[in-house]
């Protein structure tokens, strides 16, 4: 079993191919401590940009919804894997609602990297992997999704990468991700 500081959490929206569940199984087979959070049945309200997490309950959203389940789990993870259907080169609606609220547990400080300002980690997450799933991709959307994930990684000042899965390469893609995470 891996050390606790290398805990992997898979945040997975519904995909027809059950990509999140299959990845969890592959990681568990490799004896990697993994937790799957299937978000399809969870409900998360929008971030209303109300400032409550700064002015009323510092570091905590003032609205009660299922991020109360998700964020404590993310606080304990070192590697965050998002498995998401891709819409117009971006995350699914449900996944993005959660991602928007992750800012609450993000490091608020600014850092300088390569001469640019960046922000800090979400909790203690040091690696971010996003697996975009589509029945089929076109090249422009591939570039858009990869670019978005790379910007996410850049702004959080952590490691990671994007993977693009479709019906033809999903098994190989999950194998590659599991292999990469087990190193």
């Amino acid at each position, binding site marked *: 079993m891996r050390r606790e500081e290398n805990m992997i959490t898979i945040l997975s929206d519904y995909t027809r191919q059950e990509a999140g569940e299959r990845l969890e199984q592959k990681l568990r087979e490799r004896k990697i401590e993994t937790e799957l959070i299937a978000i399809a049945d969870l409900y998360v309200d*929008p971030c209303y940009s109300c400032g409550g997490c700064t002015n009323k309950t510092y570091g905590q959203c003032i609205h009660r919804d299922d991020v109360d389940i998700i964020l*404590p789990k993310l606080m304990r993870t070192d590697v965050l894997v998002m498995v998401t259907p891709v819409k117009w080169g971006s995350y699914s609606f449900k996944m993005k609602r959660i991602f928007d609220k992750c800012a609450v547990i993000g490091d608020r400080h600014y850092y300088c990297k390569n001469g640019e300002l960046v922000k800090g980690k979400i909790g203690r997450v040091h690696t971010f992997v996003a697996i975009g799933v589509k029945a089929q991709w076109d090249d422009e959307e591939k570039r858009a999704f990869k*670019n978005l994930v790379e910007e996410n990684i850049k702004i959080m000042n952590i490691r990671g990468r994007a993977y693009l899965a479709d019906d033809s390469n999903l098994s190989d893609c999950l194998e590659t991700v599991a292999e990469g995470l087990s190193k």
Partner: protein
Amino acid sequence: MKKAVIINLSPRKVGTSMMLANHCREFLLSRDYLVKITHLYPNLKDLSPLLAAINEAESIIMIGPCYINTYPADTVYLLEELEKNQNNLHGQCLYAVIQGGMPYVHTHESGLKMLELFAGENGLRYKGGFVIGMGAMLNGQPLSKLLNGKKAEKMFGHFLENVAKQENSPAVLYHEAQLKMPGLVYCIMAKIMNRKIEKERREKQGDQKKSPYENPGLDLRHNGKDRTIDCKR
């Protein structure tokens, strides 16, 4: 008279996105447009007024904040609903404006790309966008208050000219508007902002540095609702 609809994609009705929406509205009014501003968030339960406004317009201008490198989640919801209600889409011009805290164009540009891809799949004519950096710092104040205020105003003006003429607006305009400073200046800015952040944290949170979400038995009781987190769930 041409009709345009400006959609405020921000959850806030006052703030930088609305400042830009009002700026855009005034400009188009001066070019003899009939302009309507509609807000996404108050219409989330029933998007029909918003869909109707889109249907009636020849130009759609979507203006919103950048949350983690693209528009907030509910923009995706709006696009999904528009895709389901294709009868409201009939080749309108679509323009995108995104504003965020970081001064760099690349941080926010994915939002524009999302709208461009949506337009391509749904029979809209994507005509370009504009990125405003340091929008969070502005907090609703006019563009002239930015460190690069003069240039940002001028380039945004060129963008609005293109919107009024229903012409393509090139990315070079917002690239030109980006604040360009040496890395050392950003490092100093980071130190100043971090001091402010720490001061704010001490005032609000005292010496408790941990996030409340790190406490597994946390009792989250607010807004009259009781709920205890069960982290094993």
